């Protein structure tokens, strides 16, 4: 993956199994968001390959990823501000969740998802009026209605209070266990992430310097040197 002459990601190889919760860490500019963009068709990789199941998705547009069950959130939440929470949540159900021809299903899916993330009772409110922390929850609801098998979360805990971070962790865990959705979770708050994720990926200058069980990664000298040593 390259931007102009600069390689944003090189030689990053990993797979995701069903039901896994994988944490991704790395300092600013390590390529975390670029990785998510490549995994969702938002930006096509200049080299390398993205496969979903047995299919090559490297050149597929974003909507094909979404329909194949890969959902994501954004570092700065991107909700539709002039639509109600309900309409935001129903969006994915209609176009990626296979409910296009059954409008009633989309409404039910939207209500359930809003309820699931803790936004019940605010369906009629406009998303633009929502405080940033709750927009993150709405984005998760929007992702859930697409009926994903893989959910990619981009710093959903940033800017939350310690209590909210804890609740977010629980929510993500519940999604994984109750809905059996694989999760890739990028976060700056390394300690939180390590408490929930059983596997960690560490990116540094666009390279994958560690991939393994959380405990092993925590003890990896390269990781400590490159990243953990400075912050943890």
């Amino acid at each position, binding site marked *: 993956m390259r931007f102009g002459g600069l390689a944003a990601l090189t030689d990053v190889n990993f797979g995701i199994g069903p039901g896994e919760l994988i944490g991704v860490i790395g300092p600013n500019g390590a390529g975390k968001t670029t990785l998510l963009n490549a995994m*969702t*068709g*938002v930006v096509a990789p200049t080299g390398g390959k993205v496969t979903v199941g047995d299919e090559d998705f490297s050149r597929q*547009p*974003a*909507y094909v*990823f*979404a*329909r194949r069950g890969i*959902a*994501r959130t*954004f570092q700065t939440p*991107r909700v*539709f*501000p*002039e*639509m*109600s929470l*309900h*309409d935001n949540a*129903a*969006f*994915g159900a*209609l*176009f*990626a*969740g296979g409910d*296009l021809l059954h*409008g009633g299903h989309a*409404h039910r899916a939207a209500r359930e998802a809003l309820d699931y993330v803790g936004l019940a009772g605010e*369906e*009629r409110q406009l998303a633009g009026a929502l405080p940033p922390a709750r927009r993150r929850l709405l984005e998760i609801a*929007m992702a859930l209605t*697409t009926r994903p098998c893989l959910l990619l979360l981009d710093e959903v805990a940033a800017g939350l209070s310690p209590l909210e971070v804890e609740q977010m962790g629980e929510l993500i865990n519940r999604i994984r266990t109750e809905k059996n959705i694989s999760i890739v979770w990028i976060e700056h708050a390394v300690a939180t992430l390590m408490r929930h994720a059983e596997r960690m990926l560490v990116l540094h200058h666009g390279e994958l310097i560690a991939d393994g069980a959380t405990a092993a990664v925590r003890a990896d000298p390269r990781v400590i040197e490159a990243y953990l040593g400075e912050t943890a």
Partner: protein
Amino acid sequence: MKDWIKWLPLIAALAAVPWLTNAYMVSLLLTCLMYVALAVSWVMFSGPSRYLSLATTAFFGIGAYCTAWGLGHLPWPLLLLGGALAAAGTAALVGLFVLKLRGSYFAVLTFGLSELALHVINQTERSISGTVGRVLLNPPEQDAIYLAVLALALAAIACCAWLWRGPLGHALRGIGADEDRAATLGVNPLRVKLAGFALAAAFAGAVGAAMAGRWTYIDPHTVFNPLIGFQTVLIVMVGGASRIQGAVIGAVIFSLLSEFLRMRFPYFYLVLLGLLLILSVLYLPNGLIALLPRKKAAAHG
């Protein structure tokens, strides 16, 4: 949905107008209805998607030429359908290229479309008949045109309401707010835009096919008149693009007001109209529609 029943008396009154008043009143209402149909067809796509289209003139002209070519060979109602299909087909074809562009690029290219259509038709006419301009020898009666345009305006309103309520309208709103985001939620943006653009074009094409019957003589410069497209966009600016009523109210008020000013102040009406437009944009940026009380958010459910 029961809403529209209360409009039935108004619709019936409008349909009876040709039998109640003189030809000028019919023709004034015809102008209102023509712009209602054009403005509603415009907001249908451009309202939610925020793609500012200046192609109304092109679609109108293409529709008008369907009547110019077909009158005398095919029944007129069929020509309205032909105009709709030709305009929708053109929109779909051209949309494949221009709908990949956003903002002012899209606006400029859609404006260029009417110039392009004008020259294509000019060339075609010259190579087929050796001349341009067609005389319509047995045009439909004014009342028939009026009723047809009334039906088209109502159909445009019904279609727009249906579209905005359904998934396509939802997708267009998503595209208007954040196109890439909508794509990550499963919307195929190009396909949705093509569908919306073509549907809107169909109405403009049918209106052009209907209006052509009024003019006896059709040539490319008459029917590809940029004024028609600009006025449509102005109407939506004045009325408001967020609700169908905005386009309808805008079209009626704009048409009547410009006619009134043109008659009352034959030399200064454009200055007055310009002033009113500037005031309305300054003080009612969301259009006249902002003055109407909004019903409780009529969302899904």
